[in-house]
């Protein structure tokens, strides 16, 4: 009896010793796989889409979250092609929760809200809501996948093209451009952001930056990039003070803003043109009335026919 007890004690001590030996292995696994084990990991819960019992469901699914996300993704495909567009956001919320590293699901989610549902909405309030949600989804996507240049670029593009927030868009394009895998068109998008709002100092600085990127003469894409950027650089050197070019950019930008139900940009510092707060079109500096439709150039409260009224230059919020 005593022998057996001693033997069991030795074996238990041996097991305890071996268990202690696993501690550094487990700690190193925690460090090597932070997206699984870091208690502060971003993928555990994404604030904007924390809906009801989802975290519990995710916990219960354990290692099968990816498969569950795939099944829901197939439903998204079916609903999308079946025209059942309004059901898709809730499904994509679940897919993003289940698999926060499924990049395409994030991209489609942000795009569907900011483009499809925004365009399908019938009221201005709904349009603003869906655009805001689309951008918020992409911000969550970037937060959950900080290593993805595609998602950073996607957020930047949505801010630029749909949100008409060029300064924020430029900052995200800059971030995406810092990734080694990023493409040359991302570099060019940085200065494109400043063209529409005629932010000439930032535009010239971004053009200089783009000229110094992708300079390998043995890479076809780099050669093409240099041709495009140098063309643009020379164009803006010649036309940065050209009133007609300024007029062209103002019309282009505010037409795009009107199409997207965004507020007109009023170009407060433009030396050549004042912009009508009602139609977004330029009139010569100092005009009292809009030269196109005869609107008074000073905004009158409550009588604006613009898609969203005037917008202060403080729009240039940084991220």
């Amino acid at each position, binding site marked *: 009896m005593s022998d057996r007890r001693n033997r069991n004690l030795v074996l238990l001590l041996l097991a305890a*010793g071996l268990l*202690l030996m696993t501690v550094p292995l487990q700690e190193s696994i925690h460090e090597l796989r932070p997206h699984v084990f870091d208690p502060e990991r971003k993928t555990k819960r994404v604030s904007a889409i924390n809906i009801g019992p989802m975290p519990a469901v995710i916990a219960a699914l354990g290692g099968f979250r990816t498969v569950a996300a795939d099944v829901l993704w197939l439903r998204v495909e079916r609903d999308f092609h079946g025209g059942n567009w309004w059901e898709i956001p809730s499904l994509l919320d679940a897919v993003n929760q289940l698999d926060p590293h499924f990049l395409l699901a994030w991209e489609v989610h942000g795009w569907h809200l900011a483009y499809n549902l925004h365009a399908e909405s019938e009221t201005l309030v709904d349009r603003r809501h869906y655009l805001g949600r689309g951008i918020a989804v992409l911000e969550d996507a970037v937060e959950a996948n900080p290593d993805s240049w595609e998602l950073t670029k996607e957020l930047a593009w949505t801010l630029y093209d749909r949100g008409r927030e060029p300064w924020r868009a430029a900052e995200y394009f800059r971030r995406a451009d810092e990734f080694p895998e990023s493409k040359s068109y991302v570099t060019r998008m940085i200065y494109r952001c400043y063209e529409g709002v005629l932010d000439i100092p930032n535009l010239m600085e971004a053009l200089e930056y783009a000229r110094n990127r992708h300079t390998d003469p043995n890479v076809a894409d780099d050669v093409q990039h240099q041709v495009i950027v140098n063309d643009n650089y020379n164009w803006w050197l010649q036309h940065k003070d050209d009133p007609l070019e300024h007029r062209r950019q103002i019309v282009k930008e505010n037409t795009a803003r009107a199409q997207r139900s965004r507020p007109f940009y009023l170009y407060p510092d433009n030396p050549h043109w004042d912009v009508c707060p009602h139609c977004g079109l330029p009139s010569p500096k100092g005009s009292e009335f809009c030269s196109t439709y005869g609107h008074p150039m000073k905004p009158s409260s409550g009588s604006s026919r613009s898609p969203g009224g005037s917008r202060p230059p403080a729009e240039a919020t940084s991220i």
Partner: protein
Amino acid sequence: MGNLPFAIGFVVVVALLAVTHRLWVPALGHGAASTWRIAKITVAEARRRRVVQAVVVLVLLVLLFMNFFSYLNPREQARMIISGGLSAITVFGILLAIFVAAFLIPQELENRTVYAVLSKPVRRFEFVLGKYLGAMIILAVIMTIMTVVLVGVLLVQDHFVPDFDHSVFEPNLDNVIFAAVMSYFAVAVLAAYIVLISTVSSTAMTVIASFLIWAIGSLQSQIHDLAEAAETVFQKWFFTMFYWIMPPLENFDFRHEVSNFMHVSYRAGINAAGEGVLYIIIVLIVASIFFNDRQM
């Protein structure tokens, strides 16, 4: 942080092995031979089981019919096949582990064949180890077949699915094979726990407990989160103990990274494999203690 526990553990293990070497060194040669014989018999028994054959056929069918996502773009197709295929390998591997390992010892006890084996010069620990090794051999063969079929499906699809500029069918073969190997380690660790339970309980209880351990082991990171977020010393101690006692199955789960074409840390896999081997030894030691003390 982990160096002190490792040093203590290492010293304890080396000291115990050194002190008791006269007891275990002479038995090594004979023990290995009898363990191997029991393992071979276990493999032969498992091959005859219909449920094993049925599960293998089922999973092969599932893997072969994974090309019905042809309406998705190439990258999505690859993702679906990889995540579905690896999950099928893991799920069916674990189900097979439960249904093979849970019957190993209780059935021998219920059929009383264990008495015939133990009446020969075979130690009880060798019996447990032989049974476990036999189960591991049959599971290794089955999981290898499943992995080969998955790799074949990916290669065929890679050949036939046309790539687009923005979306390429990426079979990600290195990482798929790595994830399948890691799934085998998960199955091996879980099977050791099942053998441990089967030494003290009936077949039905073993099967139920195995499913519970699988579920809890798959929630390893959540238990770790609970331990980190614990507000009282008792809670922290409880969850930390629970975390270390349960099988670390999430360590072996690389399906998420591989399906999403993320960076896969091979070092994490190697460390997990090393930790898995240590867990298996620990659990089999405890199993042999229970089986030695069992009245038959």
